[in-house]
């Protein structure tokens, strides 16, 4: 029996397609299905040409195949509105849901910070926060692991070309969800998130600034070491995650300046914000597969 968990990707857009390309290199996850709602979608056609089974009637078009095809993990790359239904239907069949939408039904997952914990508890729905959250929360956590962080603030600057209509129509959701996760996962008492959309051509690479206010005077040496170590952890799944400047210290303020270059699989390299989402989503599923393979967790029983 293969150690790979078999997967369905919901949503054949940019994120879903990039995820599919990354997944084809994975030792732990095997893409089997891609579903959408438009039979004419380029993404579905592309997936089909890559030998992936497709449905253009959403997940309803493949639910009866879940058991036969031994689908164990789903990636939802659609929108928050349909996510809850998708998740309920698939969870019922014992499929683990990795949620790349802002729905956030399940707990937030930022791989180097809390993935291990979610995987060991066989959390059936995990939410990948936001692109800005994936890029910055590891840094907030790197500081809060050393000492108490009273306030964490992140500024994500992304290229205009890398922000789709869904995010644009509900940009408040980005700021709220990210700020919530800066607290819940990053470990800051209070969190704030800011997003800036920049239309420069050629498109700028995703950049992120992380500011933390520590309760006591910051232990500069320990924080610097923790930040550098955390950068290495993220680089394991996003090689283009780069510390540009910092950490720099000003009183109790700790600032870190990052740049995120994507792998350029389907999405251009400047879209590090999208790449870090797909990479984190895949990394999450891989950890579940590893834990299942090691026998640390037992996947839902099937006849």
């Amino acid at each position: 029996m293969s150690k790979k968990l078999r997967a369905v990707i919901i949503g054949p857009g940019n994120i879903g397609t990039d995820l599919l390309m990354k997944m084809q290199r994975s030792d732990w996850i095997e893409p089997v299905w891609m579903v959408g709602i438009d039979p004419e979608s380029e993404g579905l056609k592309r997936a089909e040409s890559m030998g992936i089974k497709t449905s253009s009637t959403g997940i309803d078009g493949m639910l009866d195949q879940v058991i036969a095809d031994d689908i164990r993990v789903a990636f939802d790359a659609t929108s928050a509105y349909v996510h809850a239904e998708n998740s309920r239907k698939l969870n019922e069949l014992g499929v683990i849901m990795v949620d790349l939408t802002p729905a956030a039904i399940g707990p937030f997952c930022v791989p180097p910070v809390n993935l291990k914990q979610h995987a060991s508890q066989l959390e059936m729905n995990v939410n990948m926060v936001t692109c800005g959250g994936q890029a910055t929360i590891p840094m907030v956590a790197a500081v809060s692991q050393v000492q108490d962080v009273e306030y964490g603030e992140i500024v994500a600057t992304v290229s205009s070309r890398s922000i789709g209509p869904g995010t644009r129509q509900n940009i408040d959701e980005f700021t709220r969800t990210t700020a919530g996760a800066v607290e819940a996962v990053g470990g800051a008492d209070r969190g704030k998130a800011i997003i800036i959309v920049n239309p420069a051509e050629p498109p700028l690479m995703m950049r992120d600034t992380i500011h933390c206010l520590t309760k006591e005077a910051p232990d500069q040496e320990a924080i610097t070491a923790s930040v550098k170590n955390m950068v290495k952890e993220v680089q394991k799944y996003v090689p283009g995650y780069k510390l540009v400047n910092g950490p720099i210290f000003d009183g109790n303020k700790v600032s870190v300046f990052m740049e995120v270059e994507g792998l350029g699989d389907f999405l251009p390299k400047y879209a590090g914000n999208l790449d870090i989402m797909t990479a984190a989503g895949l990394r999450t599923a891989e950890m579940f597969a590893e834990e299942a393979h090691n026998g640390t967790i037992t996947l839902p029983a099937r006849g």
Partner: protein
Amino acid sequence: MDLTGKKVTLHDMSLRDGMHAKQHQLSLEQMVAISTGLDEAGIPLIEVTHGDGLGGASLNYGFPAHTDEEYLNAVVPKMKNAKISALLLPGIGTVDHLKMARDCGVNTIRVATHCTEADVSEQHIGMAAKMEMDTVGFLMMAHMVSPEKVLEQAKLMESYGANCIYCTDSAGYMLPDEVTEKIGLLRAELNANTEIGFHGHHNMGMAIANSLAAMDAGANRIDGSVAGLGAGAGNTPLEVFVAVLDRMQANHGVDLYKIMDVAEDLVVPLMDQPIRVDRDALTLGYAGVYSSFLLFAQRAEAKYGIQARDILVELGRRGTVGGQEDMIEDLALTMAKDKGLI
């Protein structure tokens, strides 16, 4: 130019854009004194918030002396005739801030986006319009794109429910002909009942001339700031503009001596630095850089030994937009490393 009898709504920025120049530290007493003075002088609309708008309180832009709510609650009840406006930048503030402002008695919401990103404002403009507020779409850094692009984005904001559209010269880069062209196209193509506004900065010494050009081309709301208190070399100095409009017999409704006195007696004494076209502010205009970057670049110069002017020019070259204040220290660090200073 003939502006005889032309009606204009003057909108004061000193208690919002001026917050940049004060590092967001105006006291409640100062806000109340200035707004009361402006109200008595006949200014019909006064903006009050953190310099970066509702929700701008942050390490990135600076924590203010008081919350937006505290400022609004101090100022709104004191107004006899003037209405209060609040700025909101989607990505920084949210509809929650917008509702708070409405509950505080704010009359006008101005939703600001970069001049190419109007579609991030749909939920905020829609909400403000739904609450029947005076709803303004505010297209920043409008010098960076063509008149046709400004129009395209203005139409989006209009379709979301904005009843007034601003062409905003955030960098103080525009010269009068550009203002004429952009405002003229907006006036020709937007709905006849949509108001048009212009917001200038004085970085190239053009704020008064540009504001006149805007009025001549069809704008009926003009932003300015008493004593020019605003980011960079400041906004269109309102007392000067009122005097000019007086001479041109435009219909502005403001008492010249009273607004002169607010400028001289209340605003100038509280300035931390003279608001003038110094070499750094001039560089903002010359290089087309967001005006509130000024003090951040000057602080980076003091800390890392890289000239503010060089930082600002590089920021312009990189196409930075409003809100990217975090880029300034990052860039100064990189420049200082490259020069072997750190």
